[in-house]
């Protein structure tokens, strides 16, 4: 009753940094572990066929081999390959190699690694934003993408784009006061975390599982997939 009911930007920041962050992490961890366990618990049937190659080696190789695009696919979808790769790398670099993020990870998980200088991350963020915008336009215009796209695809685009955008705005102090800018950034990141396990954003984690299975299936047959 006494405390003012309207939320100040500082209250907002403390709310997003404190309870909301805990909540978002909880939902994320809970949801994602459920998703992963659901996958693993299904298991695979025993394979009686005599292997030609190593399934495990093939699976592990495909984990990284899928980062290379074959020449034919590159030729038929250069935009996807270039822009997709660009903004994915940009997103990951900004997420993992920006100093404030490294500090956050250090405080949360107790592990840290060297970060990139701010101007580098800044430039990468701009590329990421442009890449994401281009990816959206492409999704809206490309016949196959437009055909396949569901509401969810656009939702996860927005959920991915917003933390990068608000991060950029906060870094450049374009939104004032700063606690509001930072709070918005954290809030959008939290939305990303909460939405992640319930959408195809799960691919951040499950793509590795998928790649492994793919590589293992082909690897067993002596084919590098």
């Amino acid at each position: 009753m006494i405390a003012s009911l309207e939320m100040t930007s500082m209250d907002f920041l403390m709310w997003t940094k404190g309870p909301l962050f805990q909540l978002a992490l909880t939902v994320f961890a809970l949801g994602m572990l459920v998703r992963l366990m659901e996958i693993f618990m299904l298991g695979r049937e025993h394979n009686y066929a005599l292997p030609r190659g190593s399934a495990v080696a093939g699976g592990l190789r495909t984990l990284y081999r899928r980062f290379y695009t074959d020449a034919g696919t590159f030729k038929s979808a250069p935009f996807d390959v270039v822009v997709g790769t660009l903004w994915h790398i940009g997103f990951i670099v900004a997420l993992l190699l920006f100093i404030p993020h490294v500090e956050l990870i250090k405080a949360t998980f107790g592990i840290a690694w060297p970060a990139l200088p701010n101007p580098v991350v800044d430039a990468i963020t701009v590329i990421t934003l442009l890449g994401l915008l281009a990816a959206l336009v492409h999704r809206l215009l490309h016949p196959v993408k437009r055909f396949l796209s569901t509401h969810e695809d656009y939702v996860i685009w927005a959920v991915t784009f917003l933390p990068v955008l608000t991060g950029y705005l906060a870094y450049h102090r374009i939104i004032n006061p700063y606690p509001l800018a930072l709070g918005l950034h954290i809030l959008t990141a939290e939305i990303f975390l909460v939405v992640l396990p319930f959408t195809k954003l799960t691919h951040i984690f499950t793509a590795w599982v998928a790649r492994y299975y793919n590589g293992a299936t082909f690897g067993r047959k002596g084919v590098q997939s």
Partner: protein
Amino acid sequence: MTDAVLSPGADSVATGDTVPPAAPRVARPADQPAARRTAQPAPATRAGNFSLQRGLQALREEMDAPVAAFFSSCVHCGLCATACPFFVETGDPKYTPIYKLEPMRILWERELTLWGRLKAAVGLGKQVTDEMLAEWEPLLYDSCTMCGRCSMVCPVGNDIQYMIRKAREGQVASGHAPEGLIAASVRAVRTGSPMGLKWKTLDVQIKHVETATGLTVPIDQQGADYLVLLSSMEIINFPEYLEAITKIFAHAGVSWTLSEQCFEATNAGVQIGSKDIAATLVQRVVDAAERLDVKHVISPECGHAYTAIRWEGPNAIKRAYPFQVFHIIEVLDQLRAEGRIKTQGKETDRLSMHDPCNLARKSGVIQQQRDLMDLIADDFVDLKEHGRLQWCCGAGGGVSSNERAAALKMAAFKRKKAQIEAVEPDRMVTMCATCRTQLEEGLEELTMDIPVVGLTELIADHLVMPEPPPAAEEARS
């Protein structure tokens, strides 16, 4: 809740019955008939006891960790479309490979994800209907050869063809498989050949080969090293094959045999997508091989026959074989490596090669055929994309047995044609009867004068034949 969900009755929640939002979460079995009558014009059970229920049950059986991981990972990037000859040549987005799995994905999400189950519990989320399975039948059969090229390019690593094979189980069990494949499957089980071919026909050919070569074709030789299988299409369209291996094996001194009990290598069950039919057909091969006590079984110049026996067979019959399975090309290359094949002269015209998907991408036989070509060709040029990234001819995976798909099959071939045009060969070489037929028909239809030959025949043509072959003499006496 567990029991309710798992009981066959409760499964109807996800079977296409439209559950009104106000309805209880779990539809009681008693509620179903009425619900089905209103929501589903399609008959609950059609001839052969196939039904939506049975189809969904079959699909459920196919769910495993890879399927769940794949569906969890797709971000609708559409790159698989660029890998698919059916999309590339038609430009129709519905031929995007991952889209062909939509019913399976819906079932997975609804029944095997917590989130989907929660949505289903409050009446949200899509359900698989009989109409949907009917609508997807052409997508899963007519526009997919299970060539696996999409599985190679998917950036998140989805093995789409692995899932297509699984999805076809649901189509068969729900009664939504193409007539041509059903007929082939029935013929294969009934007669031993998908084309209804009898031993009689083969026997005529054997006699013909023996006359032409002066060699003996060994039949039911107990304890032979190799059991040779054939495909009906070869027997009818390419009798040269039998003659070729008869010559080559005589030349290399290979101990081999045919089996009167089982000569057919192809497996319509794998193509239509029924592991039961597949197991029945594989079991015949295994029985024949075990009865003759052979060490190896040779799959003929046929792609799917090889994957059916080599990779899927042991899993269909749920046990490992007491023998090894090879494609004829593997055997020939082995003989070459051991120096048991002596050739003379080389082809001088420009030759190129079509890798059968099942042999190359899906089985890892890629270098062998090239080493063999080196033996007998002066001017060999590979298609630009070959081996693990070759393009499908458009006829595999049952498409060639599915008359309805004829037009699409030809459309998809245009990709191959473009590849061939790019290297301008005088002749094409391949090692799969289905591919070879498709190449011949396609090139002819597109009025391209490029003959297609089997690699085995080509090798046989260049053998240095000892006179008279001692092995054949012995066998004859």
